[in-house]
Every structure is written in C-alpha cells, then in structure tokens.
C-alpha cells in the first residue's frame, strides 16, 4: 500500500460510511478512492510540454519525477482542459497540493509523489493540509463516536493554551 493510501484511509472510510447514511449514492465516493490514481494507465511524459517546463522551472528546488508531471498534466487536461499559457496562470498551487508535499511537512528534501488531483469536485474530502491528528477528529466526527471535542492540533508553540472554543 502506498504512503498516500495509509494517509487517506480514514477520510475515505469515514466518507463512505457517511455517504451511505446521507445519500446512499456512490457518485462522490469515487473521488476518495485510494486506488484511483494508481489504476490509471501510465502516460508517457512529454518533457517539453509547456506545463511541464513551467512547473519544472518553478519548482527547480524540488525532486520531481517526470511521471509526477505527467500524471498531473493528464488529470488537469481531463478535468479542466489542457493548460493554455496565455489564458490562465500556471497551476502551481494545485500541482503542489496534488502531491504529498504538504503531507510530508513541506520537506523540500523529499521526492514528490503524485497523490490525487486537487479539486474538491474530483476528489472530495482529499485535504492535504489537515493535520495528521485530524484523523482523530474524523473519527470523532463519525457516527459511532459522539463524545469527543475537536482535536487540538496546534504546533508546540501554540499547544500550551487550549482555546476555549475548540
């Protein structure tokens, strides 16, 4: 199982459980499938594509395999249409959020892995910014645990004083 798969296990499971209660449908669950990205056919990257060139130049300080660019370009084209340099700004933020960069604490020394196309309508509940402890919150949110308050996920500098409302 990939690193991502273990990270997203709780949101997906919770989501599916809640969805069964709320709608009984499968429409939105598909975006949270942990094996969605790996099941896509492998795409041959064009290293000279404008999007790849722009992303590679902008993130020159990160280790990014061509396959990561290719996967993102494929999903971007699939969901929004191919990127057109003269019509829209480069999707830097969406690209980074689609990788494990933030889940790894924005560690610039780690090679990036493509996780899931970052778009709430494509991958609902995929949140690379949620703190690791938020899985505890997710469990508290689920229908089988109504006892807990939101987890205090402040960094150590904030942790000593619990906010009254959290």
């Amino acid at each position, binding site marked *: 199982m990939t690193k991502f798969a273990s990270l997203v296990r709780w949101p997906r499971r919770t989501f599916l459980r809640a969805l069964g209660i*709320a709608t009984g449908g499968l429409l939105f669950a598909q975006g949270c499938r942990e094996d969605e990205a790996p099941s896509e056919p492998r795409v041959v990257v064009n290293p000279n594509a404008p999007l790849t060139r722009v992303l590679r130049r902008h993130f020159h300080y990160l280790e990014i395999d061509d396959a990561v660019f290719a996967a993102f370009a494929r999903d971007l084209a699939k969901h929004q249409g191919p990127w057109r340099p003269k019509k829209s700004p480069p999707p830097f933020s969406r690209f980074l959020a689609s990788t494990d960069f933030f889940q790894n604490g924005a560690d610039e020394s780690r090679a990036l892995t493509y996780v899931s196309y970052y778009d709430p309508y494509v991958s609902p509940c995929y949140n690379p*910014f949620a703190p690791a402890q938020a899985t505890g919150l997710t469990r508290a*949110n689920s229908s089988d645990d109504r006892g807990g308050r939101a987890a205090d996920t402040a960094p150590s500098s904030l942790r000593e004083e619990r906010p009254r409302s*959290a």
Partner: protein
Amino acid sequence: MAGPTGERFDAIVVGTGFASSFFLHRLLRGLASSSRVLVLEAGRRHAHSWQLQHPRALEKIAARSFINRTPAKPWVVQRAFGGGSNCWWACTPRLLPSDFALHSNYGVATDWPISYDELEPLYSEAEWLMDVAGPSDDSPFPRSRPYPQPAHRMSDPDKLLKRAFPDAFFAQPTARPSRTVAGKRAACCNNGVCELCPIDSKFTVHNSMGNVYADPRVTLVLGARVDQVDIAGDRAEGVVYTRDGREEHARADLVALGANALSNPHVLLRSGDTHALLGRRLHEQTSLKANVLLDGVDNFQGGTSITGHGYMLYDGPHRSERPAILLETWNVPRLRNERGKWRQLLKLMCIIEQYPRRENRVEVSSEDSTRPAVSHAGHGPEVARAVDALQRELPRLMAKLPIEDVRIASEFKQTEAHALGTVVMGNDPATSVVDRHLIHHRIRNLLVLGGSAFPTASPANPTLTISALSLFAAEHLLS
C-alpha cells in the same frame, strides 16, 4: 400536485427557502390533520446530483428572474426549490443584542421592533433544526441552549487570534456539521466550495427539511410564479400565479409571502400596495478582503472553510461614528506562491454593516411587469468611515500575530448575497410595512417573511435570523 384554479386552502405559502420552510415547519406542528396548505414555488426542484452535473445552472436561472438596472451592483437570489439554501455558505451567527437597537444605543439607523431576548429561544430552535456546530461555552451572544454540535477545529492563526482577543474572537457557528447528522448529512470535510458542497454536507432544505413538504397536508406546486395577492378591502383572499404560461388562482384564509427581498415587494406592489417604503431600502452588507502575510505560522489546518469570527471591530461606542465590521477567517487553502511560505497566509473577509437608503429599490418595470426591477444608487457615506477604520485598525490588530504585512483590497466584493430590507418591519405603520410578527399592518391575514423585513443589516450573516423570525411569526399565529 397542481392546485386547480379557485381551490381553497387554509394557508398559502409562497417560496420554499429558509423563510417559508421554517415558517411551515412550525405552522404544521399547530395545524389540524385536516388542514390544507398550498406551497407555491416559482422554481423547480433540482437534486444535488443534478446541481453537481450542471454547475452554475441555478445562478443563471436566478439571474433571469429579475431586471438589474445597475448591473455593477449584482444581487444573488435563487429561483429553485430550497431557495437560498442551495447556494449559501451555511454561516450561522446570531445578531448581537445591540444590533436590534442601533438607534437607541448609538443614534444611527433604526431599531428593530423585536429584541434579542424575545428572539433568543427561536434562535436556539433554528440552530437545532440546522444542526449548527458552534462554540457553546464561548459565544459572543447570550445563549439559553448549547449548540447541537461542537465547533469545528480552529486553524493555527485562529488559535493565535483567540489568545490575543479571548473575548472578541470565536469559532464560527455554522450549519456545515462537525459531525455526521444521522440519516441526513455527512460531516463537513473542508472542501472549501460551499456554494455547492460536493458531499451535500451543509444544511439545505433539500437534505434536511424535505419532511415539511412531504407532509400530507401540504400541496407543493413547482414552477408557479406568484404575480399578486388578491386583496379585497383589508383582507387577502388568495393569490394569482402563473404556471406553464397559464394564470391560476388559489384562495386561502392566510397568505404568507416567503420569497426573497426582490420578489416579496414586487408581488405586493403588483397587488396594489402603495406604502411609501415598499420596495425601498434594498440593502446588504459590503466587504473587503484582506490578506495577512504570516511569518512562520502555517494556516489551513482548520476543520471547515471559514473557521473564525472576529468581533474586535464590531460593537461599541464607535458605532455612533462608523458601522460595525465582522472579521471572518478563511481556511480555504489559497496558497502563497513563495518558496517556504506556501501556507503562511491568512485570508480575512471584512464584512461591513450598511444602513438602508431609500434610493436603493425594487420596482415594477413598465417593460416587463412579471420581473422585479432593481436599482442601486451606491453605498452610503458610513461605509467610507468603516473602511477608514479598517485600514487604521486592522494592521494594529493583526500585529498581535507574527506577520510580515497586512494587505487590504481596494475594491469591495460585489455582493454578500444577502438582499434585505424591502418590506421593512416596525411598530409604526407609517414607517414600516409589516409588524413585529411579520404581519402586514393593514392586511392582517397576510404575512411577509424573510430578509425583506430586516430594518438594518448587521454584518452578521442574516440566514439564522431569517429562520428564527419565521419561527417567531408562526408561533405567534398559533398562539
């Protein structure tokens, strides 16, 4: 399904948004099993799955429902089953007690004909109907009951603000649930696109009040645009509506207009109501965005799209000089495109109270009388005073956090999607159209529900107050 022409009902309710649904919810609890209520909705029913497949379709449908004579000032309404619940962001603050007495307290604008204390139990009831998540033990307004759900997780900048302003910064109350609502909705997982939630988590009439419209006493007719109230002397006899191009009539002992603040006055104007204030005073809040560039503090750990409410610039003696400002802290990840500082950005929405102006109005158009025509003459001078205060005070407030800079936008957000004030409530029939129970001063079996009754627009989002007022009105009727 369709109500045949001339059919008689105990009550006719117009619209299916918050105002009508909460009114109906309470009314049905007090009506006999043999009672019959006709609900007329101009729009159609669009399932959540349909809305996902047709993004912005409801917006386009609604835009055709009125004539905007000043397009630079857009207004957001909905013409669909569920009304504004389809596109709202589910922010549910209450008004502060002082918001109900602006003139008495500060000598500006108008007092409401109802006090916070009178509305408080209905606020609680509305919060429980919406399964609101909020900070029960730490709230800016007095409360008689806890929130039904705990507050969402704050972001790290929120926590710093809470530490700096313990009595003025709070987790936002919201109908985006922090826990699953059994049988109805999944917990919010912070998708950040609440105008159309991908997982249908926020409260909507569709997902949480369908039972009201499934009640056997209720006949719901969709695609029925109400054109006027049939008025004979001082009594409403029923309504005239158009459906599939055909004019229909329905009769009832009670008529409740619960459409939006553009349609309610339009229907009354077409019905021959000539009150000098009818259709006037159209207003909403305005807002400015601000970006706070953080220094070494990451954002976006919060549990939902908007996580905090700052009241530091809201209430106090300054309201004699300038309007209240509510600060919203946003947790939707809009990244800062700088290496090593991607998450070091706090977006604030600074929502500014506006006083109603007579010039801003809804009229019956001579070109197309079937649609309200809307004119807006601009902000009043009080808004400039609020902006001055914001520019002066916000950097000082944010300096309590480790920051690099505070950047306040120079242009106002075009709309807050909160049309208000066009069928104003009050105690004096000379200066208001409906009374404190939302009953028309002259036509005593006609109610006008919704934001159109608001005497003033506090910076707090109005939906919870709209819902509580509808419960208040229904409770009065039944008593």
